[in-house]
């Protein structure tokens, strides 16, 4: 008889998650750190679908503050990650709305760096401009379309997972993505027409 192998099934993962939430809820710093480390990269990717890179850190912090605030009421019906993504989407949408209301400078200051600082020190100007153009196009989308696009493009979530995060049906998520892409083709037409086919 060979050694017994144990598999961490879905039930034990859910139980482990529930235990982690309970510890974080009681103020256990290590438990909170574990939650942040597990989800911060995903949250950072999501919020970059709503604000520019320079603001993403502040917004990500706001997301996790809301998560901490919501821990006492988290009932575990959804997976923790699903709930955190939902919070990130809501905080991101609010941040995008605030950003749209603020007056923006007509042009970059002369001493603005051409290369992005932070995790992408080698990012070139073209890539930055392309992301900026994509963010402007996302700004023009209705919130419900934008939420689906960001989760799909920035996080690579399946439509089923997107539906769970946003509390909608899967066909609705697919339909919103298709309609969003139609609008994006129009908004990004100048960039897309200059694309060179490989």
């Amino acid at each position, binding site marked *: 008889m060979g050694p017994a192998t144990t598999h961490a099934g879905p039930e034990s993962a859910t139980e482990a998650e529930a235990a982690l939430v309970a510890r974080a*809820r009681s*103020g256990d*710093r290590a438990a*909170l*750190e574990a939650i*942040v*480390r597990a989800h*911060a*990269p995903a*949250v*950072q*990717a999501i919020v*970059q679908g709503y604000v520019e890179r320079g603001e993403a*850190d502040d917004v*990500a*912090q706001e997301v*996790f*503050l809301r998560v*901490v*605030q*919501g*821990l*006492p*009421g988290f009932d575990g019906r959804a997976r923790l990650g699903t709930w955190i993504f939902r919070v990130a989407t809501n905080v991101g949408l609010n941040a995008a709305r605030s950003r749209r209301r603020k007056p923006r400078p007509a042009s970059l200051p002369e001493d603005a760096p051409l290369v992005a600082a932070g*995790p*992408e020190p080698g990012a070139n100007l073209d*890539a930055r401009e*392309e*992301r900026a153009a*994509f963010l402007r196009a996302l700004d023009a989308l209705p919130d419900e379309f934008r939420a689906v696009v960001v989760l799909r*493009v*920035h996080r*690579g979530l399946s439509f089923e997972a997107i539906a769970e995060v946003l509390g909608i049906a899967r066909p609705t998520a697919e339909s919103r993505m298709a309609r969003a*892409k139609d609008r*994006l*083709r129009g908004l*990004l037409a100048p*960039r*897309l*027409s200059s*694309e060179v*086919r490989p």
Partner: protein
Amino acid sequence: MTDPLDRLLARVVPEPDDGAADRVLAGLGPERVADALAAGELERAARRALWPSGLLALAGLLTLGGWAVVQAHRPGGHLAGHLHHAKQLHAPSEDHTLVLAGASVRDARRLALPFAAAPSAPEKR
């Protein structure tokens, strides 16, 4: 991937950011976390109290309304007495009007009542 839009979408995907957790944790000091947890507990308690309070208030209003209706229709009831008195206060002074016209007070009362006897001839003044 032949769709230009799909190619663009693939390019704008953010790069993995391994430093994100450290930067977030740097801004989540113990005091900030404790404040957020306390605010969350308060919000949860307030939400729990909202429904029972609302139901109690509604039950109280319904009880008060029902009592008022019952009292108003009960003969000799507290409110009924008040209503009758109010009606009397606001009733036209039929007696005074008919007396001014030359009829006696008794005649005036008889006229005011249905199926009353025919009034007597006005008293000569």
